[in-house]
């Protein structure tokens, strides 16, 4: 009995806590991309520039957020458990060896949605509540 109450309380506290601190983030693609779902490793491969196309051959066009947007730090913490300094260190290696450029960065979720909706290979991340008919949710990052 006590155990059940405790679990309820903890769950409530967890939900309240998480809804205040961090929203649930989702990875979204262009609704016409033909991609229905992705695995964590597939998402990692795309956001780290390792793979530049979807399984159907469409070239991916990822978009990232600026450091000032707290969702950027949250996204990489949930996806790979890394701090932004480590993400930026990773990209500095790619850029300064001439291997590849980092995904462009925009300011807000609305900019991400616009980017993804405007490009067949568009892929980005937003809060679950912001994902609308323009995009398709292919991966959920639980806080």
């Amino acid at each position, binding site marked *: 009995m006590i155990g059940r109450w405790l679990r309820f309380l903890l769950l409530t506290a967890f939900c309240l806590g998480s809804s205040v601190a961090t929203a649930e983030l989702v990875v979204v693609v262009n609704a016409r991309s033909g991609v229905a779902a992705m695995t964590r490793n597939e998402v990692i491969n795309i956001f780290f520039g*390792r793979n530049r196309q979807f399984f159907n051959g469409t070239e991916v066009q990822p978009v990232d957020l600026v450091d000032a947007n707290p969702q950027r730090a949250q996204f990489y913490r949930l996806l790979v458990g*890394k701090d932004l*300094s480590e993400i930026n260190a990773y990209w500095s290696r790619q850029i*300064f060896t*001439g291997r590849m*450029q980092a995904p462009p960065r925009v300011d807000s979720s609305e900019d991400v949605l616009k980017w993804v909706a405007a490009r067949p290979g568009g892929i980005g991340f937003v809060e679950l509540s912001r994902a609308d008919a323009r995009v398709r949710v292919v991966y959920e990052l639980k806080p």
Partner: protein
Amino acid sequence: MFMLKRSDRSGAGRRAVILAACLQVFAAGGVQAEDEGNFTVRGFGTLGAVRTTTDDVEFVRDLSQARGATDEWTAKTDSVLGLQADWQATPQWLVAVQAISRYDQHRSFNPQLAWAFVKYDPTPNLSLRAGRLGTEFFMMADSRWVGYSFLTVRPPGDYFWYLPFYSIHGGDVALTLPLGEGIVRGKAFYGLSRGSIPLGDEQWNIRNSPMAGGYLEYQSGHWQVRGSYANIRFEHDLPVATVMAKKGLTLSAADADYLRARGTRTHYYSFGVVYDRGPVQAQLMLNHIEQGSHALESSDAAYFLFGYRLADWTPYLGYSTVRSHRRGRSASAVVNYVMEDSHSDQDTVFAGVRWDFARNVALKAQWDGVRGSAASLFPYRRDDRANWDGRMNVFSMSLDFVF
């Protein structure tokens, strides 16, 4: 570096123009990578300080440096400033130029045009580059000067000392293929080497020496595994005769022929595993270098590095080792002297911490305990053979940044 310096030995003109142009673009542009089809200028740098506990040898970052650190603090060894301009003309075409200023084989910080290349990606998984390119003889070899991109103050010396090659005039091709949830990546390059390697007060010209190589890599989840191979065929002999003459020794024709480097080929094999998961970073690298010239000993080296991030702090611990293989004694004392100079036999334990205290800036402090034999001379400069006992401690601090 060599080309630029030799063709412009007298005036600072051309060097200054390159740097000024880069700085001007940077100052005027206020450039950020925010959109495609544009022009960006970015940079990286390190302010480093290093000292050892001996003045019997000079400690260098790699054999491209003519002089190194002793038991007094110096900022020369690790400090660097790099500026890079990228023009993404279309999603397929990229033009990149990088200028770098660091302590070099001519004992100067004169800016060098590190790379200038055109990159063309005909498909998302195929990439072609041509021009002046960085070489990736070993994993991470082409980002050795971008301190912000790695954990330690400098890449482990026992593993990287023997790699004074930085760029080629040539081309490379890289192909990426998904395999399961992982990615296979292969790369091949060919080109002509540039520059020179300091030897005593002389320079070993490695210009126009053909280099070829490639690697195959598999990356899945937290794991990355890579095997690579490269070779270089030297076009010029080591300046052994001149160096020996300064020591009052004469190199006979027979000895010169025995120590010949011209026309010999050196092979580089390496294997690396990287594990990167959340706060954990671990690397294991092995290499084997097969030298073609009798003047240089073949060697095996390895390093292991483990780091664990705690908030903004990442303490790390590592071990590296290098052993070279003697070719036997010669009847000539001069030949023996030269061959001894390329011997290495030592282990290094290193420990340090990286502190990411601000955005795009990291502060590092590191200790290296070098424990080797007194015959381990190759990694160093200006060795005092009579006193060097193969043991020293190295203390380093660096401030690494990107912008």
